[in-house]
């Protein structure tokens, strides 16, 4: 098995899906000749041609809206939003259309559509190239929102999303693109769209995270285990909507002490829902108040390095919060 980066895994998934099913095509801004501004679609135009690798006009609502029509016909479009920050013009098409088409037609029509969107910060992207947009798109039944934290999941989850008959918002953390490396099977495989994943086991404290915060949490956990003998369970949510409630509750029960970590703002973020699931289901198993460590409640990540660093949760801050919780 070869070691690949997160973005290579994504490219491989796109390639294999297009090989496998001639109904799969990609569209978006600069996905063709430029191969994507992050190079996720590099090489696809040369291999699959202009019909299946489509440079679109600069118009996000049309990208998603046109993809909805093509998907309803029976194709399997994979639309790229260049930066997640630019997804908002397409909100109506995503939440009022894609998410509701199966339900409103009583099952007659469906939208096998994937929307890929690079999100997240720590890349000197400032307010409009660093956003975590998940909170606006979770909570719309009919739409799935997932995000991989490593190359293995990136490939398998994207293949599952493409061959799912439901619309999936597939969030890719920009900072993981080249940072995250791992073994990725050559073969076609899928990772479930509705399952969280336990990525570390330990009995002292539970960390629930997703995206970039998963490797950060793992690093913090390893450090605490090595240096202080604190053993953490780390749960990678993988799926942000609908959540894998059973896995969340089990992870919380295991240690009774829960730290939820995300880069998105705290109030109104996905962590609130995770905390609520635990408070509804496993309240009496808790030995400490639920704790959230998140981005601050400011509109978005500032550009200047000290401000950006101030915004991003770090391994150090995660480790400190874990330590505090373990000692509670």
């Amino acid at each position, binding site marked *: 098995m070869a070691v690949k980066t997160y973005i290579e895994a994504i490219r491989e998934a796109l390639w294999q899906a297009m090989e496998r*099913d001639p109904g799969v095509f990609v569209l978006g801004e600069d996905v063709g000749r430029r191969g994507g501004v992050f190079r996720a679609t590099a090489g696809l135009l040369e291999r699959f041609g202009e019909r299946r690798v489509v440079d679109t006009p600069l118009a996000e609502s049309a990208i998603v809206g046109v993809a909805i*029509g093509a998907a*309803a016909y029976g194709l399997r479009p994979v639309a790229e939003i260049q930066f997640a920050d630019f997804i908002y013009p397409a909100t109506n098409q995503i939440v009022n259309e894609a998410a509701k088409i199966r339900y*409103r037609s009583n099952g007659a029509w469906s939208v096998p559509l994937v929307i890929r969107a690079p999100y997240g910060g720590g890349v000197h992207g400032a307010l409009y190239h660093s956003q975590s947009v998940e909170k606006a798109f979770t909570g719309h039944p009919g739409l799935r929102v997932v995000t991989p934290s490593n190359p293995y999941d990136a490939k398998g989850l994207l293949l*599952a999303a493409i*061959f799912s008959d*439901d619309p999936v918002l597939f969030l890719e953390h920009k900072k993981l693109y080249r940072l995250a490396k791992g073994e990725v099977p050559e073969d076609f495989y899928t990772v*479930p*769209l509705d399952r969280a994943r336990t990525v570390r086991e330990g009995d002292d404290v539970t960390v629930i995270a997703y995206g970039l915060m998963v490797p950060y949490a793992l690093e913090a956990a390893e450090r605490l285990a090595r240096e202080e003998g604190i053993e953490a369970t780390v749960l990678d949510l993988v799926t942000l909507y609908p959540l894998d409630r059973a896995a969340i509750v089990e992870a919380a029960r295991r240690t009774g002490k829960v730290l939820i970590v995300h880069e998105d703002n705290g109030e109104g973020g996905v962590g609130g829902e995770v905390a609520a699931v635990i408070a509804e289901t496993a309240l009496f198993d808790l030995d400490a108040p639920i704790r959230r460590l998140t981005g601050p409640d400011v509109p978005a990540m500032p550009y200047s390095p000290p401000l950006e660093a101030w915004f991003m949760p770090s391994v150090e801050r995660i480790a400190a919060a874990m330590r505090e919780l373990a000692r509670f």
Partner: protein
Amino acid sequence: MDHRAAGLTDAEAIRMYRTMLLARRLDERQWLLNRAGKLPFVISCQGHEAAQVGAGFALKPGVDFVLPYYRDLALVLALGVTSEAVMLAAFARADDPASGGRQMPNHFSDRRLRIFTQSSPTGTQIPHAVGFAWAARYTGEPFVAFVSFGDGTSNQGDFHEGLNFAGVFRLPVIAFVENNRYAISVPLERQIASPDVASRAQSYGMAGVKVDGRDPFAVYRVVREARERALAGEGGTLIEADVMRLTPHSSDDDDRTYRSREEVEALRQADPVARVRAYLLEQALLDAAALEALEAEVAAEVDRATAAAEAAPLPDPATAMRHVYAEAPERPGASTDRWGGAGGKGPEGWTEPAPAGGGTDGGR
């Protein structure tokens, strides 16, 4: 225009009139039922029938994809939607084929007829139509995508983005504006800054055509021509049909606050249903007796549809959680039905996707 000049037979012209009449009577019945407290909501096609029927007869039902909007009762009847289906939706019954009673009336959908499900936010269907047209290009299947909407809706961003996308790729789409000069209470002058909607076609490298929306035969001809151009790879057309809204915007509206009664009366004098009726008489396609028989036949059909729908069961709340996500196949093989309706099969060599690992796959 003369129906023969438009390429229509006498029988077709008569069928077009019958469809207009049926739409009008179904629509009127819904208002009666609304005033009687039996239907919470009605939205009308009255005054748009000629344009809609002209367009509907120019399309190929079950082949072309059609994306109508809430006024398009006459259009969908022309395509094959039944009176009973219309009334089942009006009464929000379980067997409403459009939505199983989930959506408001006149939110048409029929997968077999390739009438795509619609929502209420205006204009969202325009990019969808472009997506269907994209699929025609992609698969090589010969059909057009036809999408209709109102004049006010041509101000939405989705109109601009969708038609520009279609124009860049010269996709086979027909965008049909039913210009009734109002968006609820706001008159055309306050809606659009261009002299008309059709001239906006120029922004999208498309043909722009204006047509008298009271004349079903003229509309038939321009839509048929647009369809031919589209199928020949010559790109899309933006057609603007001048129509009139004879009713308030909907049963929730009261148009007396913003339209004079004289204005509405003047429109009534120009009623397209009456006009086509007069044409049939004048051309001796039907005589007075035949017209009366037609009226009776249509009234009976409306009665039957109303009675059947009213007697049909309401949806069971136990079904309300269904169809949020794909369900496990209920009938094996259902997932091979991937081609947007009855007609489509996909081009040679197409393979079915393998089941995904997520347990989220399945038929529909």
